[in-house]
């Protein structure tokens, strides 16, 4: 496979408002670097992330989608991330079953205190997606940028 050195993946990160979004803020406050490829969408809870959003992101040109939520047991809404964990595990497993590269998707628990973890996770994820190259298996050709 031809690896494009200049490939800059589009990464969509869904972050729950209470933990991960605050964790992302903290990594900013601590001036911890991660690539600009990552764009964060704030959701109240990771359980708000509908599989439709994930597919939509891939359709519109995302090369990787990551969901971040509170650690299990720490959900601001008690149980939201437990549902997330089941739903997203099954969805990712299905995407894998359909032959979509499994490293394009990820779910991570990042607490409000884990600014360093947030940055590390994002660095790693961007690197993984870069290795995979552009999303071709789950893209909508009509949306491909010329």
């Amino acid at each position: 496979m031809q690896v494009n050195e200049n490939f800059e993946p589009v990464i969509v990160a869904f972050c729950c408002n209470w933990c991960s979004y605050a964790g992302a803020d903290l990594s900013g406050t601590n001036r911890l670097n991660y690539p600009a490829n990552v764009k964060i969408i704030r959701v109240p809870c990771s359980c708000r992330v509908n599989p439709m959003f994930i597919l939509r992101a891939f359709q519109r040109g995302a090369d990787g989608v990551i969901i971040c939520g509170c650690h299990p047991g720490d959900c601001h809404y008690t149980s939201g991330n437990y549902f997330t964990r089941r739903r997203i595990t099954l969805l990712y497993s299905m995407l894998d079953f359909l032959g979509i590269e499994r490293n394009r998707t990820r779910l991570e628990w990042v607490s409000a205190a884990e600014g360093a973890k947030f940055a590390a996770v994002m660095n790693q994820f961007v690197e993984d997606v870069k290795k995979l190259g552009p999303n071709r298996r789950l893209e909508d050709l009509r949306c491909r940028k010329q």
Partner: protein
Amino acid sequence: MQEAMIKRAKELLADGTVNRVMGWKKGEFAYDTTPAVFETAEEIDRDFIYNDFTQANQSKYLIKESRKEGKILALLKPCDTYSFNQLVKEHRIIRENVYVIGIPGGPKIDIEKIKAKGITGITNVKNEDYTLKIETIYGVETMPFYEAVSVKCESCKSKKHVVYDELIGEGGDILDSNRFDMVEKLENMTSQERYDFWRGELSRCIRCNACRNVCPACTCENCVFDNPKSGIDQKAAADSFEENMFHIIRAFHVAGRCTDCGECSRVCPQNIPLHLLNRKFIKDINCLYGEYQAGADTTSKAPLTDYRTDDCEPSVVHERGAE
């Protein structure tokens, strides 16, 4: 069997237990049976049929029928009872308005499998001791019964009726089926092989919605794919992405609710093995969250509306075997 069913149906109509009977109506050929509602004994005598071709899962019709005046008799095969139960659980079928008779199930025959042998001009199909005698305008052909068994019956999961008011014939047991073999085979392929497999299958999709509309788990008042407000509505797949999207989301929406009745694959005009997507979810749920059979009862918590604090992390997906 057909006689016993007709007899009992007429009795129940006569004694006023029910005012309608849901059954199958004979068609133009030996094999084209249509689900139908009978209101009189005469209609039943004239058109009622139950044979090797009466495959259709009738439970979905009962959503509407159970909301009509009076009680309806439903003749449910073991697999149909799971769908029925699931619909009762989701408050879609009003249980009190249905009188359920459990009837023996398959194996049923798929006419397409006979036609695939090049047999055409079929005028009659007889099952003579598990050899099919197929009369055609080009002469009589024979083939072993089991070679014509429909895909959904090949991997029958249960002969047990999970809900009924009475049984005709004998009740059965849950079977040790091989239904996950193909899923497993796919899981053992490489990512690229799986991708190629599914592209080959899903690219044939013509979005006729037969799979969705026949599915007893797809009972939404308005499907997200028909609802412009959902943002993902589509009438035809304008891109391979939309083919994937439709089937992923459909499978996801019925995950934990699909009873694996196999209707989706049966009705697909393009023979796409859609049941594999549902079975993948079922297999994952069984492996990761404990055995669960949708429709087996009406009280247990569905796997996707339930959780355990020590559920596995999604990394199990990433850590599975080779890419």
